[in-house]
């Protein structure tokens, strides 16, 4: 397998985790309940840990001397490869949780598939992450059920979030040439398979949550994986990268 392709694929994995972790970090100490504060930080931490593993491996494969911090703090928006879903603003807590649930479901099936990757290092990182992402999936699914089947207000708010974020869910399965190459090399799991798992799980949770699932064939946004983002990402990065940019060459 072409090292450069694997490097690019690892960036996608790392960027997804980092950007979502960054979004969750913005909520530090501002969650709707203390237990949520704990859980949000916990998930943000797990994702950050995974980011570091993906980036470190990516940096090694690239062999250009870029470490995890160079990859996180010294790339501009067009060089980021995360899906659009993850850079969407936190919105209200239903938005935050639906975004999380869409991602967690995909992430779980992806990581589960990656444990069988032909790339031993990727398989090992996936193995290490599997427990974390299983917990994330349980937690966000459980919350979606309780919000959907909670009060009339929480149901409506969650349904609105479900619909608003739906158009960002397709990109995770929309395999481009790079993704296909990864599948062909046995590095990544098949996209169509992930999608059918995703639809089944999301569907069953929505059913339990008395939420209506938007049509599977709805129009889907894309571009993030190829570096064409929404207007949000630039702001996220400007904030995140400030110190590394303002004090180049410093050690922290």
């Amino acid at each position, binding site marked *: 397998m072409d090292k450069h392709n694997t490097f690019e694929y690892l960036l996608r994995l790392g960027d997804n985790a980092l950007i979502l972790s960054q979004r969750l970090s913005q909520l530090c*100490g501002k969650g709707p*309940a203390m237990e949520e504060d*704990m859980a949000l*930080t916990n998930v943000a*931490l797990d994702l*950050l840990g995974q980011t*570091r593993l993906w980036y470190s491996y990516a940096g090694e494969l690239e062999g250009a001397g870029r470490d995890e911090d160079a990859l996180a703090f010294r790339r501009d928006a067009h060089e980021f490869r995360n899906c659009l879903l993850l850079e969407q603003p936190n919105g209200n807590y239903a938005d935050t949780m639906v975004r999380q649930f869409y991602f967690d479901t995909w992430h779980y099936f992806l990581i589960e598939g990656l444990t069988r990757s032909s790339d031993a290092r990727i398989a090992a990182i996936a193995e290490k992450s599997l427990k974390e992402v299983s917990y994330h999936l349980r937690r966000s699914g459980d919350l979606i059920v309780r919000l959907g*089947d909670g*009060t009339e*207000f929480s149901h409506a708010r969650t349904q609105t979030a479900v619909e608003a974020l739906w158009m960002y869910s397709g990109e995770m399965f929309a395999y481009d040439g790079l993704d296909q190459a990864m599948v062909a090399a046995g590095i990544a799991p098949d996209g169509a398979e992930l999608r059918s798992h995703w639809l089944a799980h999301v569907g069953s949770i929505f059913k339990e949550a008395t939420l209506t699932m938007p049509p599977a064939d709805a129009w889907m946004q894309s571009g993030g994986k190829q570096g064409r983002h929404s207007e949000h990402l630039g702001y996220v990065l400007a904030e995140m990268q400030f110190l590394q940019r303002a004090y180049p060459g410093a050690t922290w």
Partner: protein
Amino acid sequence: MADDERAFQARIDAGIKIEAKDWMPEAYRKTLIRQISQHAHSEIVGQLPEGNWVTRAPTLKRKSILLAKIQDEAGHGLYLYSAAETLGVSRDELLEALHSGKAKYSSIFNYPTLSWADMGAIGWLVDGSAIINQIPLCRCSYGPYSRAMIRVCKEESFHARQGYDIMLALARGTPEQKAMAQDALNRWWWPSLMMFGPSDADSVNSAQSSKWRIKLFSNDELRQRMVDQTVPQAEYLGLTIPDPKLKFNAETGHYEFGEIDWAEFHSVLKGNGPCNRERLRTRVTAWEEGEWFRDALQAYADKHAK
């Protein structure tokens, strides 16, 4: 003194822990509720000044450590509220008192965090002071509180070390980084000394709390301990403590230090700190905006309990 009260004091004097189900004087209960909940509130509000730098931490490793620290603080808040609840008050009542401004939290969190170095200074000085305050409380007379403090102190000592490590990296860094560290020390030094509370001479209720063993050392004793511990660390960092009167007294073996600006302390306590209003507003907003969420969880639980 009534029999109950005498027996109660005798247990304390004998070093036996008071437990939730035991009889206790109403004033003891009230003092403890105030003290524990104030500590819990401080953990919760204390997430905010640090949360302010999580999204801007300069490396992924530092970000990770800071996030973990903030998570610990939420955890401390949770088990301190639980400890308070053993005294017959609910977490919601305590939060209500915080949000309405009736209850206090540590005034130190009313100062802003203005640079990354503040993450170092808070760990080093603020957590450092907190530990000095709290270590004696691991041996306090109220069982649930003492057990909570043991857990808290274990984690806090990590935080203090991590803070010092941030300062160390900055002090060994570029001139700009070193200036950042010095500036943070300048801003956090005096507020950290104030964390121990008013001078013993002006401290109310101390005698009774001592007798009940929920205050084991005087404010001034603990403050001295903090100065003695911190000055050599600052020297090692190559930073200057912003106190021209600071000097080592070889006879006493302690550092002497300048007068604390108690006017500032009382002004911040009264609500005039740079961030009092903002901290409280952030918490109140989070709470109010979270109401529909908590209601939903309750509604779901009610439905499915039937």
